[in-house]
């Protein structure tokens, strides 16, 4: 019997591909966000509203991750935005390799903002770096204000939190101030936006922020 010392990160392969993706994004001066949430929080609706607001003024592209179907890519394609669907066929998260494969279908030279919509899941995607500049977590008011406490890793790893379905607050036992406080207790640096994809509230501020961030992404080559 003998012991072999290994000391290697389990996800080192994913991390390495994510690093290569990040270098490729930097080369093209691309701002890339990884949009995460639980199922039904409104990622795709938010994306549609954002595209409605930005299409024509900011060259963007979308990578859609879903367990099954290309329904989301179809929804997004209506806005005339290049969209690639990744079907994970049961997989609960996107991995860097899947994103790299999808990038082949996009003309990155023509894109400034790439939005990657992850599979609806607040656990697994927090472990998998895709090469993005930041994770944006969508928490909807219908999920309750304790969501950040239940999934702290995701809220800690995100740079932005969007409180979606803000129009439903009058009908729900959810206090957006408490939701915000719970998230900030885990990650005081979180940038918070409140949106409603039904009324359009908050979409201009969120979109303007995306434009500003995309403008400051520096091209390295």
């Amino acid at each position, binding site marked *: *019997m*003998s*012991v*072999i*010392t*290994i*000391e*290697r*990160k*389990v*996800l*080192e*392969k*994913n991390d390495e591909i994510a690093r290569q993706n990040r270098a490729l994004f930097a080369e093209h001066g691309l701002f890339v966000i990884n949009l995460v949430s639980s199922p039904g929080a409104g990622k795709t609706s938010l994306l549609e509203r954002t595209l409605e607001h930005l299409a024509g003024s900011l060259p963007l592209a979308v990578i859609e991750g879903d367990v099954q179907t290309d329904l989301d890519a179809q929804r997004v394609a209506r806005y005339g935005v290049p969209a690639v669907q990744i079907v994970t066929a049961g*997989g*609960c*998260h996107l*991995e860097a390799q899947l994103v790299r494969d999808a990038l082949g279908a996009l003309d990155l030279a023509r894109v400034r903002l790439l939005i990657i919509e992850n599979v609806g*899941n607040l*656990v*697994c995607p*927090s*472990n*998998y770096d895709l090469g993005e500049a930041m994770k944006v977590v969508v928490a909807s008011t219908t999920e309750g204000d304790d969501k*950040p*406490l239940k999934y*702290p*890793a995701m809220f*800690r790893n995100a740079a932005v939190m969007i409180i979606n379905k803000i129009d439903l607050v009058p009908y729900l036992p959810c206090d957006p101030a408490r939701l915000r406080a*719970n998230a900030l*207790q*885990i*990650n*005081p640096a979180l940038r918070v936006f409140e949106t409603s994809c039904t009324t359009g509230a908050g979409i201009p501020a969120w979109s303007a922020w995306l434009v500003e961030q995309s403008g400051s992404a520096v091209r390295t080559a």
Partner: protein
Amino acid sequence: MHELSIAQSILEIVRQNLPLDREVSVSVVRLRIGVMAGVIPDSLEFCFSAIAQGTPAEGAALEIEHVPLTARCAACGRESAIEPTRFICPLCGSNDLTVAGGREMQVREIEIADGNGSGP
């Protein structure tokens, strides 16, 4: 849910580290996993034992060293254990913290035996 893909990565790393000059079997795989890594140990063990069948790691036990969440405080410079839901320095009350431990997901070492495991 993602334990299967993590188990596959672990098995791949284990196999890459086996000696090439002789047949061995792996009896123990030692892992270091942080409390904030989002891994469910039971699920990981189940997935690993399933995919390890027919490989040198068939029947290997997973020994997991759980790493608590610790953070370094920028205000007072000290490191403390904290709760995942409350990123506040227990010593000075600052919230300017950097995670020092608790996110790890590493393969530390393996124990191997020659042949079918009954060797010296």
